[in-house]
């Protein structure tokens, strides 16, 4: 067989996926530096276990799964370390777009910040990255019913927070 090695295969495809991996990382870490660190770590991990990726499956969901696990490990380690270590600075993504976009971006990020981790992951995969419910459930390793109810709760909470923000006096 003359197909590329799994390593080259994964590496080749990752190049085009990077913008989306960065976006997913930004959503789940809520911090610009953490997000790129997470992408870097995930890419390194993926390349090291490229042989575990099945070419018939989606590389993006596989990567999201690696990133989710790495992030959860990181949160645990950080919690353990927090006695020694100052907490991470919060960071918001404020691009150089129009004021309206920026307002939206800020209020959405503030609302996302308040979701529980598990709901934020569901939102990131389905609503932002566009995975199907089934793909997202597989990526997170949870039943599809659990995914659906997390997503529904997250949506309800986000909607409430964003409506509040909009109605608040300016």
């Amino acid at each position, binding site marked *: 067989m003359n197909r590329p090695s799994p390593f080259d295969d994964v590496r080749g495809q990752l190049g085009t996926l990077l913008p989306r991996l960065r976006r997913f990382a930004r959503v789940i870490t809520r911090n610009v530096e953490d997000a790129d660190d997470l*992408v870097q770590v995930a890419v390194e991990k993926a390349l090291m276990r490229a042989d575990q990726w099945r070419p018939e499956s989606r590389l993006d969901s596989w990567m999201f799964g690696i990133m989710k696990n790495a992030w959860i490990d990181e949160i645990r380690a950080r919690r353990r370390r927090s006695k020694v270590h100052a907490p991470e600075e919060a960071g918001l993504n404020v691009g150089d777009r129009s004021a309206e976009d920026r307002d939206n971006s800020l209020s959405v990020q503030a609302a996302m910040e308040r979701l529980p981790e598990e709901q934020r992951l569901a939102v990131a995969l389905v*609503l932002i990255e566009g995975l199907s419910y089934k793909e997202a459930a597989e990526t997170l390793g949870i039943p599809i019913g659990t995914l659906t*109810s997390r997503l529904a709760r997250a949506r309800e909470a986000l909607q409430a927070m964003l409506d509040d923000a909009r109605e608040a006096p300016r």
Partner: protein
Amino acid sequence: MRFSDEMLMAYADGELDLVARAEIEAAMATDPELARVVERHRALRARLQAAYGGVLDEPVPAQLSSLAVAPVTAPVVDLASRRVAPSPAAQRRWVLPQWSAMAAALALGAFIGVLLLRGPAAPYEESESGLVARGDLARALTGQLASDPGAGTVRIGMSFRDRSGSYCRTFRLQHEAPLAGLACRAGEDWRLQVLAAATPEGGEVRGAAAMPMVVLQAVDIAIDGEPLDASGETAARDAGWRAVPESAGEK
């Protein structure tokens, strides 16, 4: 017919089959409230996408794009190139306990920048069991507490016991090109487990935050339980850093 909110959400997300879709669309045609709920779901999705869409247009940092196209051999840093162009990764504060490749690298010893300090005054030397601390570094590892600012070039970071019960300590060497590492007690020696380029200690970056990522990862892989506190550290030093077998009580 009433539809659950989850069903309307699934409809808005394009998750329903043809039949269910047709049912909802028929109901929406006569029930503006239903149409409004679906529209709210769609609008929220669009808002979220807009909020994060900007990330897609940002240029990908070179350190990431180079990973995906350039050959990757090992997740270690090269001191020489880092000194020329410190990359954001140099300041990475990440720890990854289950990073298997790191564990593999540790088994071989991850020494980065070692060659730069070889010479008569080097703070370590090659022994049969690998690199061991010598000189100031060895003295500091044996005698200095983390709370001591240290008169010399060595600062101690944290001390802990590894899974085999041996004591290990992280340290920084204040040189022109600062180094940081992890050493574990082996007999009367301190065997170096990791040595890596460190970012110069500036202003607010202190303590664990000033340790390079590879050192923090090595700690996470090796550590058994929590780091020693000040009294534990003093007691361990006073006892000569003798390894404490698993679950052994105070002597």
